[in-house]
């Protein structure tokens, strides 16, 4: 019996017990096994779009729509898509949230074929819609094809637009 209590036997027993303890500990559930998904998508699955539709020469028609966001849809992207459909205007390329500023990237043909009045109504409709839909933003700055621009044809786009 005393022959069992050799140094190497005892050392082996200790290693076995520590290994067992570590295995049991690692089997405890510490959290969800699934990968985390982007915060924006988990935080918001509906969008309240405040649409300001151009109604020249009087001004804008206000309309509020509540929409479900589908998988992979972002509030910004959905807002651009709906505004574009509602106003029959080319879809802006992208919307970026930069603190209290919204950056909207426009395609070069955004105001093609419009006169000064209609261009102003189209741009201000988009800016006011976004500022009303995302009230945390204070101003909208337009880019053209990803770059700051002096404008498209009639309006100065070098300065940001705010709600009146």
């Amino acid at each position, binding site marked *: 019996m005393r022959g069992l209590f050799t140094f190497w036997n005892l050392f082996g027993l200790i290693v076995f017990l520590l290994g067992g303890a570590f295995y049991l500990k690692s089997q405890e559930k510490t959290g969800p096994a699934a990968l985390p998904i982007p915060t924006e998508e988990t935080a918001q699955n509906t969008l309240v779009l405040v649409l300001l539709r151009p109604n020249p020469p009087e001004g804008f028609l206000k309309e509020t729509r509540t929409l479900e966001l589908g998988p992979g849809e972002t509030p910004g992207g959905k807002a651009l898509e709906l505004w574009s459909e509602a106003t029959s205007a080319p879809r802006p390329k992208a919307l970026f949230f930069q603190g209290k500023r919204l950056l909207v990237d426009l395609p070069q043909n955004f105001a093609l074929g419009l006169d000064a*009045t209609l261009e102003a109504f189209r741009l201000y409709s988009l800016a006011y819609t976004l500022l009303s839909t995302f009230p945390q933003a204070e101003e909208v700055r337009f880019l053209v094809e990803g770059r700051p*621009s*002096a404008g498209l044809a*009639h*309006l*100065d*786009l070098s300065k940001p637009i705010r709600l009146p």
Partner: protein
Amino acid sequence: MRLWLLFLWGLALAQAPKPLKVGALTGEALYPGGRGVAYGEARLVAQGLGLSLWQGGGQVALGLGSRVQAFPVVAEEARAATGPSAWRQGDKVYVPLRPLAEALGLEYRAQEGILLSLPWARLLGVERGQGRLLLRFSREVNAVVREGGVLFLLAQGEGEGLRQEALGLFLPLESPPDRLYYPGGNRVALEWGPLPRPRPLVLLDPGHGGQDPGMTFGDLKEKDLALDLARRVAARLPGSRLTRTGDETLPLEARLEKAQEAGVLISFHLTQGSALNLYLPKGRTSPLAQNAEALLASVTKERAGLLKAYAGDPRLLAKALEEAFGALGLVVAKAEGPYALLDIPGAGVILEVGVERLKTPEAKEALAQAIARGVRAYLEGP
């Protein structure tokens, strides 16, 4: 110990005043503060090498042609050489010689004394124009108007009517020039007659163009109609310019760059129907533009004419155009806002013409005539 004393003696000797030779004149080079920077009296240096000399406002400046070197004047010896600054001692002002020589291209040599010299310049050519004479030398040259002509100091050469003198090249003239200046590039310019009055640039900008047709009206395109109207107006305003003269794509940035120099800018656009719209800027950003309206309202007509070459009042321009259209029985709608191209110092407006107004060549001519009349009335008005 002996070596140490020898070193101190040598150092003291190096900082002691030395003879200074400037051209044909001699004086003394000083070392203020014992920092090893040689100084010479400014007046002696200027006289010896024919340099121009200005003093005042706590500064002294010496010049050779278009090159000028200025030094702040200080009274403390220790501060003078660290700047380097000029040093005032009593009623004399001393300037550091090596920095001066480097700035003006003088020859500087330090041996037993300091030698400062200027090689003689060679005349390379003379250009004669209407009321203007331009002389080019091998280096910058100072010129002095003397009775009967102009002397180019320390210059030599040959040319029609030129005479070599001991101090330089003399050009005899029947009447002294009204202006003598150094345009740079080793040149001296002499001019006679009054200064040309600056003329406001009238810039006519046909909207759209190239890949951007603008609006389409059946077979007609806005870019072509705008260019045609702008050309008709330009024909009635000599000296005016177009931002584009053909069917070319011209970004707003390029138009805006051209517009910065314009005293008057009209950007031509079209719209449906028979409307006549004038778009004006709301809140211009440059200080000149912000002050222009008040300045134009307060100065005399003559000064307003000068000011309009650099800055303008878009409201006054719009009013003049409105009156010119009114004479044809046309009513204009005006709006202010952040329109492109209008945030410039000059007076800029966007003119949008209804396509119905351009149906016949006679109608186009009448409209162009009215626009030109409006621009002239703005430029000639108070």
